């Protein structure tokens, strides 16, 4: 089962349609997805899942950045995790990295800076974010745009973050993550 974490400020919000459902559609098989709001995720939910995907949120929704303690399970879980936009920002905060203001909207050129299993070379992706990483801390930087860091991986862990929204124009990145995770089970 794939656990998709709804990162919107409240459960059953209007942002669910825009930031959670497209991830389910990108995976393509609705029967293998379970959706939980971030305040309701338990370590057991994570343990039972083949992988976890943290959704993005509307541009003005920064609720998860004020509640990193709700993601304590990230520190010890063995399950592969992919955070998208607010998901990546939250992962960064949980592991002690700092964020800084960085607004980016629309199709953006992303350049791969380190070989990885999700993407390669340069590509166009949809961005919608207010913050990026100030310093990479204990993360390997996988990709950058002209403005900022766009993708990271926690050193020694299968925990990834992408600031761009792969569900919009690059669903293959989500599919690769899901496929790679099923091989590590």
């Amino acid at each position, binding site marked *: 089962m794939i656990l998709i974490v709804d990162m919107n400020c409240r459960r*059953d919000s209007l942002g669910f*349609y*825009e930031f959670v459902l497209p991830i389910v559609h990108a995976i393509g098989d609705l029967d293998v997805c379970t959706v939980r709001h971030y305040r309701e995720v338990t370590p057991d939910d994570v343990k039972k899942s083949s992988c976890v995907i943290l959704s993005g949120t*509307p541009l*003005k929704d920064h609720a998860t950045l004020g509640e990193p303690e709700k993601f304590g399970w990230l520190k010890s879980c063995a399950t592969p995790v992919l955070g998208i936009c607010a998901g990546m920002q939250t992962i960064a905060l949980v592991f002690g990295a700092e964020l800084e203001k960085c607004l980016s*909207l629309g*199709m953006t050129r992303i350049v791969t800076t380190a070989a990885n299993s999700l993407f390669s070379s340069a590509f166009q992706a949809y961005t919608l974010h207010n913050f990026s990483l100030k310093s990479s801390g204990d993360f390997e930087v996988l990709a950058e745009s002209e403005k900022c860091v766009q993708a990271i991986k926690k050193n020694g862990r299968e925990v990834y973050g992408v600031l761009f929204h792969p569900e*919009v124009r690059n669903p293959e990145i989500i599919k690769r993550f899901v496929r790679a995770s099923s091989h590590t089970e």
Partner: protein
Amino acid sequence: MKLGVLFSGGKDSTFALHLAAEKEEVSCLITLVSRNEESYMFHTPNIGITALQAEAMKIPILQRETEGRPEHELTDLKEAIAQAVKDYGIEGVVSGAIESVYQSERIQRICSQLDVWCFNPLWKRNQEEYLEEVIARGYEVVLSGVFAYPLDGTWLGKRLDRDLISKLLVLEKRFGVSPSGEGGEIETTVLDAPLFKQRIEIQESAVEARGNSGVLRIRRARLIAK
């Protein structure tokens, strides 16, 4: 949260309004009346009927004219949203964008500049499933504009039903036409929907078509009991 819906009178903005009204408070509709029939941002056929639709839903409407010149119309949109913030106290904006990053990016940028929320509840919807849901939820929708090969004037005025969806899906396979008209291939007008307290009856209309481009011009319409 009080929201303003960018409203063109077509199925997408009406359905986005519907989803928004299920979660939040819709305080007003915001309509840009473009003088440019080829506007990339604002659906144009029968934009005049939006006031009647707003009356049918008992939701206030803020209408603003725009020359419809690319990028200048965005300034007009920004001013209209700012006016809605002032007049109706809206905290966010809803659009019916499904696939267009061109449209979505521009609306997101304006909302960011005005510090209001932006929601696109139809974003990335599977188009066939979406059209089926529009019918299943009781919408009465007519094709009011066609702008791509092989569509022509014979399609105008047709009701959106399962038969029409099947035909649009064939066009998608053979010619790459977006079944929901996301690429501007078709435009629609909503005559009835669950939020309508009364439905719209077209009393007089005319097809104005040439080749693969045409509109159903609604000249007279009224509200009648459902």
